[in-house]
């Protein structure tokens, strides 16, 4: 997008009103809580501030204005913070609204985590990522709540990306425990707690497996408490109930939606909080558990390691038996439990209300005062994106070798791969340039397995970078999770290379979608494949014509 075509207003301009736009203002969810917190903060700084939404919970009726009224009520002196976490269909409204705009990105769950359970939700997640790219020319800057989310914003090409601290209203957790539920749960059993909606990406089924292992191997007198909306009529809800019956653990409580007092009772009687979620843009219940003095055991996917900040026990292993071992030591070893709780308290100290408000003010000031620099005209990007997830974590693999050879032969290309090693919060992809070849390394959505033959996880940031780029994408390894996603999202312009060492069935979908644009890598002839691919990509107009 050139600056001339940009729809961003030019020139510095301080604003007098800062409003927010959310698709739905809900009572008690993370996005709604952030919007309400931010509105009070903005008002305390002297700005007029309202929350606009297309839908809202009945309890929020007094706090919200209809989104359709925003273009009429806003003017050139208004600023709009657009919260984005799911498909909203509000991009046209944003485009025709006057004033300046910034994006607040809560992250979007990868569609693949809903496959097999919620086809419609999976499609909506993909649409939400398309909307993220559609918002790119409309906003002056973008904010995220974690480095993990910020990386995707940078990959999408959004300007002036910054990471903001998540604002927590700690007083909301001071509700006294509901006595009946508390008495029921405080019966001497070790209670393992999970709080959240029972949706596929939260992997309540993995919580069930880890708890089953814990009860069978270490603590027969234990109970699993799952507090959060669970609809048995959905495929995933039915699956969870069936899995509970099949695994056969005793004392599993699916409480469904709970009141604030009931939630307090759950935390007050919990021995440990367990999260096996595969995707969190931030992960509020983890901090809530820390605040309430419950040791946290969590699987370190997506932004979870950042949210935990070294506190609690974050594991890169999904093995239920290993997770059960962590639950057991937290319960049995008082000294270790004390150390965990102490570290959790120290983690929360950095998230005090005053510190968070100060950081918000610093981060928002350039946008509100209109002192952001105009985005620089980007240099001409490489014409080819070589997508090779294996290059970073498995540099000696056949596909990694092929990626290096093709890049050498092309002379000018961008190579996109996964960042190896332990997940570490970085607000942008690592970029390394050698000659005309740029190598971009992205954080995977889940930790890399120690097993060399295990499938590599997908990376939403990498996929967004490819979809948002005009370059010709070449999937070096059509069998990977990211390649499958890209095959579905940009089928008309993608090329691919399949690994003949893997089963033929793993390339069936790629063969159907790509036809002659799918090449095969024979481990004995990597040079021939690299030469053929480089020739095809270098032909003038050949790659772009398709």
């Amino acid at each position, binding site marked *: 997008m050139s600056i001339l075509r940009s729809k961003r207003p030019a020139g510095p301009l301080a604003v007098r009103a800062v409003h927010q736009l959310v698709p739905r203002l809900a009572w008690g969810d993370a996005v709604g809580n952030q919007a309400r917190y931010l509105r009070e903060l903005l008002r305390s700084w002297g700005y007029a501030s309202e929350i606009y939404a297309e839908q809202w919970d009945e309890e929020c009726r007094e706090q919200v204005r209809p989104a359709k009224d925003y273009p009429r009520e806003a003017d050139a002196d208004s600023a709009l913070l657009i919260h984005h976490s799911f498909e909203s269909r509000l991009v046209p409204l944003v485009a025709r609204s006057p004033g300046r705009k910034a994006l607040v990105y809560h992250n979007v769950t990868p569609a693949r985590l809903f496959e097999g359970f919620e086809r*419609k939700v999976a499609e909506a997640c993909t649409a939400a990522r398309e909307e993220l790219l559609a918002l790119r020319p409309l906003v002056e800057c973008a904010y995220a709540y974690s480095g993990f989310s910020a990386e995707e914003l940078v990959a999408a090409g959004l300007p002036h990306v910054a990471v903001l601290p998540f604002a927590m209203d700690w007083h909301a957790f001071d509700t006294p425990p509901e006595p009946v539920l508390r008495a029921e749960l405080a019966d001497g059993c070790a209670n393992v707690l999970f709080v959240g909606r029972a949706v596929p990406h939260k992997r309540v089924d993995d919580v069930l497996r880890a708890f089953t*292992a814990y009860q069978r191997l270490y603590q027969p007198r234990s109970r699993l408490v799952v507090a959060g909306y669970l609809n048995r009529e959905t495929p995933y809800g039915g699956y969870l109930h069936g899995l509970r019956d099949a695994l056969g653990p005793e004392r599993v409580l699916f409480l469904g939606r709970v009141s604030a007092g009931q939630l307090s009772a759950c935390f007050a009687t919990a021995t440990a909080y367990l999260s096996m979620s595969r995707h969190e843009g931030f992960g509020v219940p983890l901090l809530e558990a820390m605040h309430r003095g419950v040791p946290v055991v969590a699987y370190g996917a997506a932004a979870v390691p950042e949210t935990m900040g070294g506190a609690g026990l974050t594991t890169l292993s999904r093995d239920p038996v290993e997770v059960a071992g962590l639950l057991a*030591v937290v319960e049995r070893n008082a000294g270790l439990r004390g150390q965990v709780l102490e570290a959790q308290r120290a983690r929360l100290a950095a998230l005090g209300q005053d510190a968070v408000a100060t950081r918000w003010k610093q981060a928002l000031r350039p946008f509100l005062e209109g002192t952001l620099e105009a985005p620089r005209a980007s240099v001409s990007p490489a014409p080819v994106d070589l997508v090779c997830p294996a290059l970073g974590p498995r540099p000696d693999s056949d596909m990694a070798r092929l990626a290096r050879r093709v890049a050498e032969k092309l002379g000018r290309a961008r190579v996109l791969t996964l960042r190896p090693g332990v997940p570490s919060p970085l607000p942008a992809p690592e970029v390394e340039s050698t000659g005309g070849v740029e190598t971009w390394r992205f954080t995977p959505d889940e930790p890399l397995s120690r097993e060399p033959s295990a499938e590599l996880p997908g990376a939403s940031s990498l996929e967004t970078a490819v979809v948002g780029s005009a370059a010709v994408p070449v999937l070096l390894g059509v069998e990977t999770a990211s390649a499958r996603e890209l095959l579905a999202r940009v089928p008309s312009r993608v090329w691919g290379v399949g690994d003949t060492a893997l089963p033929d069935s793993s390339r069936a979908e790629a063969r159907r979608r790509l036809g002659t644009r799918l090449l095969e890598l024979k481990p004995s002839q990597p040079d021939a494949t690299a030469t053929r691919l480089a020739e095809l990509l270098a032909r003038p107009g050949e790659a772009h014509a398709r």
Partner: protein
Amino acid sequence: MHAEDLLTASPTPEAVAAEVARLPPPSPEALEALRRKLESSEQAPVEREWPPVLQAPRNKKDSRYVEPATSHRPVVGPALVLAKRAFRLAFQPFINEVLRRQVEFNEAILDSLATLYEHQQVQARTQALWRKEVEERLARLEGQRD
């Protein structure tokens, strides 16, 4: 538990891994049986594509637009095709408005069918898991009887 799989500052990953190693080891038989059960409960890979049974209704859900007009009649055919195309061109906005609710209904019913289909798939997988579990229990009981 490998210390390198733990991200924790205090206590150290090594201390946690050492504590896990000190836990009383479960019997190999119990551990093996548990692992078998956990592995069998893992969700099978699913197809990304729409199921064939829903593919045809999905292709036809947008009833506002139809196949291009054709005719087999040798002489009047081209005139009929032209008339049909002209009618479509002129009245497409009205057709869209008349059929808007029908398209919304089609989409909603297709979503419901997809949910039912996925529910049925999940139930089938769960029942298979149950059947396997029951057969294993029966085999164990018969082994004990013998």
